[in-house]
């Protein structure tokens, strides 16, 4: 299961980014949000957010055992992370970032869903590769 943003409903207000950064780091700072909305041109919207892959590239890339394949989501143990940067490069969805000196990714806490004014975010239980 993972967070999925519907680009047809999303209005690019970035409320989810503010909520996410506050819930995770207690700061209003979109650059440490774990969901990132982007606008490529006039009409193309999209979001970078962890897809919780069943065979995750980030888990394969991690050499320190910080990233592990959990039952439903990919688990991250920040204590083990040394910020080597391999997972940032490995993720095909650009959905794992350095936040406050270590890697951080979406853990499906659902705060963004609660606060989205346009109900554009939902939980999707399909694996992106399948």
């Amino acid at each position, binding site marked *: 299961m993972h967070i999925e943003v519907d680009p047809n409903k999303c209005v690019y*207000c*970035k*409320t989810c980014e503010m909520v996410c950064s506050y819930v995770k780091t207690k*700061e209003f700072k979109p650059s440490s949000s774990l969901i990132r909305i982007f606008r490529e041109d006039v*009409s193309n919207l999209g979001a970078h957010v962890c897809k919780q892959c069943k065979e995750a590239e980030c888990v394969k890339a991690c050499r320190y055992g910080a990233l592990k394949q959990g039952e439903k989501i990919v688990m991250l143990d920040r204590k083990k992370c040394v910020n080597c940067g391999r997972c940032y490069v490995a993720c095909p969805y650009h959905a794992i970032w350095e936040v406050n000196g270590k890697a951080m990714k979406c853990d499906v806490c659902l705060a963004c869903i609660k606060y989205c004014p*346009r109900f554009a975010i939902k939980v999707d239980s399909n694996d992106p590769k399948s």
Partner: protein
Amino acid sequence: MILRVDLVSGKIEKGELPKDYREKYLGGNGYGVVELYKHLKEDPLIFAAGGMDGTIIPTANITGVFGISPLTGFLGESYFKGHFGTEMMFAGYEIIFIKGESKRPVFLHIDGDNVSIEDAREVWGKDAWKTEDHFKYRFGERVEVASIGIAGENKVKFACITHGYGRQAGRTGMGCLMGQKKLKAIVIRGNKPVKTANDERLFGKILELDKLAEGEGTEKYRVYGTPGGLKHLNESGALPTRNWQQASFEKAENITGEEMKHYWKHDISCFSCPIACGKLTSSRKYRVKEEGPEYETIYALGSNCGIDDFNTIIEANELCDTFGIDTITTGNLIALAFELGEKGIIKDKELVFGNGDKELGLIKQIASRTGLGAEMADGIVPFAKKYKALKYAMQVKGMEPGGFHPNSLPAYALSIAIDVRGADHQRAGAYGIDLAFCDEQRFSIKGKARQVKESEDYYTLFDSLGLCKFARKVYNVDLMAELWSLVTGKKVSAKELKEKAAKIYDIEKAINIKLGWKESDDSLPERVTSMPLPDDPVKGRYIKQKDFEIMKKEYYAARGWAKGVPKVKL
């Protein structure tokens, strides 16, 4: 922090905001005018973020642009929403102060603490959207860009600054000022948090505020965007038509917000805003996809030019946006040209109301300063003077009013005349004062001057705190005071906020006085004081000069200005 950039020497300085700034001037509008007042001789271009920008408060995302207006010669200020002001806050700068004129095209690149002036020859000559595409490709899709199109490069006097593919600082020609400085764009990205005094309590209020912002008060904007009000304005005799000769348009049903739904593709909002009044539309005829058109664009390039084809309006809006010119001024200039053509003053058979192709051609000519466009590109006053037609030109201080016919709206008429930046609808929204009445009181002048003053102060608070005026039915002054107390940690009352707003307005006026303002500059166009409207339900209405003088006196008295001159102490 204040970022000071000198484009001549290339010097970049960062300084702390003076201690009393936040308390006295709030942000946005307040910061912009006080900096301009202090440094007027340097002819600067100032970007200021609203006081609440970057907090999670719904609709707080305004950016103000300030300078001496190339169009009016008085105070130039214009606001745009979107994601730029908030990004300024995330980069840590409340004010960006730019002075001097560069010799070669440059852009300002701000990546958090790293600030540099870089060569922009690569994008010089590109339109505003392509410039934005270029920088997003080059620096990543998360940068925010404010740029000028070719109109700004060509120093068209009413060029605008474009941000986010369709958010414009349109009025008073701030894009021309950027063009004069050879500053093609500002590219910004921030990576710092915005701290308030009560993060947790603010966060706890968000769902409640969001609910308010999604309530009945904003329904019109959410569903139809700004054109939602067009039908009502047409029915109540306030829709400017055929260069302001009429106040209702017989084909108005073709250009309403309801009609725009047929072209609608997607909603777009600004930072932290649940309203999402931005409507992406597309026209198959011209194969364009764009944001808007807004109500003001529809009146200026539609009814005011006698045009009822929505495809043409969408295309005209797209051309104005990409070239970077103000749609209101452009529409009014074209409407004037059409009227002069019909009256035989300009010898051109194509200049007739309703000629959409000619309108599109003229927009291109204005942006590139060719043909008739070369005469129009300096603004409405030089253009009208050339053809000895100043009496047909609808303008105050060289700028044209927003789309509400002042002949049937006395408070609005007063507000455009006394407005510091020229005829304008956004500094007081005074049309609302008149249109609140459905009876004869709408046309009465009693008590209107006082209401205009109150309304101006209220709108100044929106511009200073960074909130959007479309949420005016959400935020009353009490709620603003409550939120501002939470943000700053210092208790402030609604009354105190209003007093601060009045002081900010005094500084704006003082800037105009420094720039050579005379009492005769606060006057109405001839068309408002001498042309009775021809159509129902406002037949025969116009503003009598005598009535206007009474209102003006009352207004100055309400502000405490002797002969229109305030006493300013910083």
